[in-house]
């Protein structure tokens, strides 16, 4: 049984890293959003499994939030926004796919080396989770920096937050306050982003961040 518990948790966390890679090479916004929904689904499964294994019912709440909010509500809402703006077919990566994937692999290797080395005493499950979580966080950042479009960056940021949720649930018995706050922060973040996208649209008729770069301070 122990072996199975470990393997399933391992598979789900590894799956999250894999989906992060899939996000890296999406060059269309609508596809990126679909992959993000999958990312959130895998996270939900992973958190629910942790809840079951550790017999920690409060984690089911976190799982439910991830499912309803991140896997369904946000992708649908963002999808509507990009449809309305007519940018769902946008191709908008900054660097080529090849170099991005190589950088992603390097980041995963880095997080494995760092996290596995510093946590020899921790519970093996938590150890693996933490290493995968760091990989997801770093891949989320990579997704952010390789996108030129505001929506793409936001999706990268949300993937990054998924990595944090994975880390928080992997750390056994971490107080509830933090998990809710993580979910809550995403809610707030989304509201902020919603407002910003609305405002950016209003002003520029585009959500291409390059358009914003022109207005950088001293070059006026």
């Amino acid at each position: 049984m122990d072996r199975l518990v470990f393997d399933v948790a391992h598979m789900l966390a590894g799956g999250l890293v894999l989906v992060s890679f899939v996000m890296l090479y999406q060059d269309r916004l609508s596809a990126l959003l679909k992959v993000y929904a999958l990312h959130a689904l895998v996270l939900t499964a992973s958190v629910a499994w942790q809840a079951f294994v550790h017999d920690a019912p409060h984690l089911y709440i976190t799982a439910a939030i991830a499912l309803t909010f991140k896997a369904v509500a946000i992708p649908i809402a963002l999808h509507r926004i990009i449809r309305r703006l007519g940018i769902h077919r946008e191709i908008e990566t900054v660097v080529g796919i090849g170099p991005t994937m190589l950088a992603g692999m390097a980041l995963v290797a880095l997080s494995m080396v760092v996290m596995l080395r510093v946590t020899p005493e921790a519970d093996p499950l938590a150890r693996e989770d933490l290493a995968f979580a760091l990989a997801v966080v770093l891949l989320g950042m990579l997704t952010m920096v390789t996108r030129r479009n505001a929506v793409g960056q936001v999706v990268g940021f949300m993937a990054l937050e998924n990595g944090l949720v994975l880390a928080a649930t992997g750390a056994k018995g971490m107080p509830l306050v933090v998990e809710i706050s993580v979910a809550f922060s995403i809610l707030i973040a989304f509201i902020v982003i919603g407002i910003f996208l609305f405002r950016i649209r209003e002003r520029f008729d585009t959500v291409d961040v390059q358009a914003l770069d022109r207005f950088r301070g001293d070059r006026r």
Partner: protein
Amino acid sequence: MIAWDLDALAAVLLVPLAAAAALALLPGYRATSRLNVLASLLTFVAALTLLVGERPAPGAYLMIDDLNIVFVALSTFIGFTTSVFSASYIAHEIETGRLTPGYLRFYHAMYQVMMFAMNLALVANNIGLMWVAVEIATLSTVLMVGIYRSHAALEAAWKYFILGSVGIALALFGTILVYMAAIPVIGEGPDAMVWTVLIAHAAGFDPALINVAFVFLLLGYGTKVGLVPLHAWLPDAHAEGPTPISAVLSGLLLNVALYALLRFKLLMAANPGALATGPLMMAMGLASLLFAALMLYRRRDIKRMFAYSSIEHMGIIVFAFGIGGPLANFAGLLHMVMHSLTKSAIFFAVGHITQVKGTQRMADIGGLTESHPWLGWSLVVGVVAIAGLPPTGVFMSEFLLISSTFAREPLLAILLVLGLLLAFGALLLRVGALAFGEIRGPVAPVKASYLPMLAHLTLVLVAGVYLPAPVVAWFRHIAALLG
């Protein structure tokens, strides 16, 4: 007595929260800007009661100790004076139509939400709660930076939001790692996130794990302090938001992030096997100082210039705490207080100046001491103080820092002095053109309350000549605590 102090602690948090709700609902900018001032004053009074009264015992979520009370008193004071400045600043913005009453309501509510979040971050006894509070403070300031809805303001807010969020995400990862390190010693559950419990058991933590945690925390909270490779958001956020927000960003928010860093530095110091945090902080501090000092020369926007000056001074403070030891810590604390007071006073002056001149371009502003003597001379005094000339408090703290650095690390002291002189030159060069010479720009009289600005500058000047013995003893005590 204890009940009273608990109430004061609650008041520091609940007054801003209640005020935020009220300000979000009430119409009419005159009344609401007065309510904003009143709420900030009440919060400051509550903080003073905490300062003089007996301390409540640390609870599971909140605590007051010798270190954070200084930060609480300082931020509520500047929060109060800034609200006074904000009232006259906002009146002008409404008259010129840059802000509509609806946005103003939002602005006031966000101001109090930010005060609440900053106070919560300071008094939190739980590293998770502290993180949540810093995040709320970030989001509320993001919204205020973008309030003018101009191209530049939106870009600044977006940049601030993205960089701030990534920073805060890294800080959360570091926080989780600290919790992981605490589990084997303290056990699972809420206790392993309580600050007072953590510090008591820090010696037993796995050094390798908290080393990694500290790197994440330094990068995360360091972004919010504005340390150099991570500072990109800071000049834009200062330059494009309303000037009262520039004042609180420089005067308060940077300090709150610094406070979080100091807390974790203490945790590292309590563990014999952990890496020395001093060299990391010294390197980042020195890099910030030198980089910002050089950047000061090419600024054309007045608010942006003082934002770079904030990066420079945060660099000095982080460097001081990095060196450590009673003298350097004392200098760091004093410098932090003096910088907050001086920089917010400068932003008060700059706020009125940009309003009357209708521009932030320094080339379009000139001869202020002739056209607006109060503003002009206050700016001169403020810049002289921030550049570190005697007889001001900043001079004293910088002098202490330089002498203790010479005693400990002579080579670094040369770099430190070089950075200070570079910044000094840039600031005096600019202020000469702004304050003296021919009058440029409109000369309409300014309707402003000079009180907050003058109060800050007086404090800074007095501190340069005479620090009361209790304050010195107090700072010395905290400096010893910081190790």
